[in-house]
């Protein structure tokens, strides 16, 4: 395509944006609303997922060895556990550590076990997983090892967390799909008004011999420009709002007791920018194409 044609498309596209201020503003409003609602769901969802992942990492299984396990067997098991697929970390718990933990648990009544030595405890390993869905697989693999006496697994907690995580993903996705449909509908109607206002120009273009692509392009560029502007506005609003609210929450006392981390906006900005740009450009293109169809039939 020649330079002057691209120039013509861009000039016309920008002119449309500024000439039809009312429809531009309403388009911007609807698109920003969609993007803001998406931003809200996305940031909350990401945080919940993050917490689930943190909790997942803490969950795992405790692998107890036989009471008479030798030093050799202990280090051998460590190697074997590390080789299993899905294992994130392996932490050794000695007899003394197990004894001390038990002592702490008894608290004031620690005397009750004072008659025992650490020898009554077995050596064990705390195994954490990379992914909770690997739980059963890892469990079976460990169970097959000779020196393992018992495995304590928090299967119920693990399953609940897994479910919460995937439910959040599904809800976010469904909300996102519905919002895209709603904004597509509204955007295409709004651009339809613009196109309707310019139907005379379009019919003249058709008579002079303009191809459909040529007529459509400025409107699509208009849609893209509006999409990009709403994307930028939404990022500023979501970013500012998120940082403000995150700070407020992080400073509250109840939150500090929970000791859950809050993601910084910087952690999510790349994904949000990508989604917003994709959304803005996509809705712009599809919305204006839908609204053009009727008027190109001259």
């Amino acid at each position: 395509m020649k330079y002057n044609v691209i120039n013509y498309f861009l000039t016309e596209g920008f002119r449309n944006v500024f000439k039809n201020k009312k429809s531009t503003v309403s388009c911007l409003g609807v698109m920003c609303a969609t993007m803001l609602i998406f931003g809200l769901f996305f940031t909350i969802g990401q945080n919940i997922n993050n917490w689930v992942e943190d909790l997942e990492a803490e969950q795992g299984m405790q692998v107890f060895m036989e009471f008479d396990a030798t030093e050799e067997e202990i280090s051998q098991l460590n190697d074997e556990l590390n080789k299993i697929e899905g294992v994130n970390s392996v932490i050794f718990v000695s007899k003394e550590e197990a004894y001390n933990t038990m002592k702490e648990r008894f608290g004031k009544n620690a005397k009750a076990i004072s008659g025992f030595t650490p020898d009554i405890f077995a050596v064990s390993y705390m195994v954490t997983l990379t992914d909770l869905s690997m739980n059963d697989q890892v469990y079976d693999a460990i169970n097959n090892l000779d020196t393992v006496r018992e495995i304590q697994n928090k299967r119920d907690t693990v399953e609940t967390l897994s479910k919460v995580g995937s439910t959040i993903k599904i809800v976010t996705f469904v909300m996102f799909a519905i919002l895209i449909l709603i904004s597509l509908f509204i955007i295409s109607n709004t651009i339809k008004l613009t196109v309707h206002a310019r139907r005379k120009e379009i019919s003249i273009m058709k008579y002079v011999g303009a191809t459909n692509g040529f007529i459509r392009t400025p409107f699509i560029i208009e849609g893209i420009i509006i999409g990009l502007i709403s994307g930028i506005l939404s990022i500023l609003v979501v970013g500012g709002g998120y940082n403000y609210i995150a700070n407020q929450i992080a400073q509250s006392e109840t939150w500090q007791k929970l000791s859950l981390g809050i993601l910084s906006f910087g952690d999510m900005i790349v994904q949000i920018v990508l989604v917003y740009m994709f959304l803005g450009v996509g809705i712009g293109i599809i919305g204006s194409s839908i609204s053009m169809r009727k008027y190109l039939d001259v």
Partner: protein
Amino acid sequence: MPFWWVLQVHGKSTLIKLILKEEEPTSGNIIINGRDTTFLKPKRVPYLRRSMGVVFQDFRLLSDKTVYENVAFAMNIVKATPKHIRRQVPMVLSLVGLSGKAKVYPDELSGGEQQRVALARALVNNPSMIIADEPTGNLDPETAWDIMNLLNEINLRGTTVVIATHAKDIVDQMKKRVIEIEKGVIIRDDRKGGYSK
């Protein structure tokens, strides 16, 4: 260089729409410049239209563009180079006698002048044929004659001009080829005819 007059009370617009491929014929063939366009693919229609310039009774100019821009607009559509546009538009404007009005908006012009702009727009891409649907319908008799003389001049320069009109006195004085159509059938085709026998 045939100069046609298409006289038909009902259906002349349909005939023009058929030529422009805006409507499909229910039967028969359309042949333009020796090419059968009856089954032309919709994608090719814009390229067919570029070989014809169209002028309407109601001028159909863009009121938010100047005279110059209205004419240049037709060249933009066929993706002409800026250099070509800068050379061609003033030339066509001078041909229709509007050199001094390039920066004026259509609303500031008289009906005759607006129709000249429309003619300039139809001519700017050097079509082989000009199609005019009641070009003088909205003009007073004197201005109508200006436009007719202009069309005659364009015809003498080598462009086929097809006009659909009801203006009896114009047809009688121009003494050009007249084709009369009634109920979809050609009932008369005179080399140098008047409005009626």
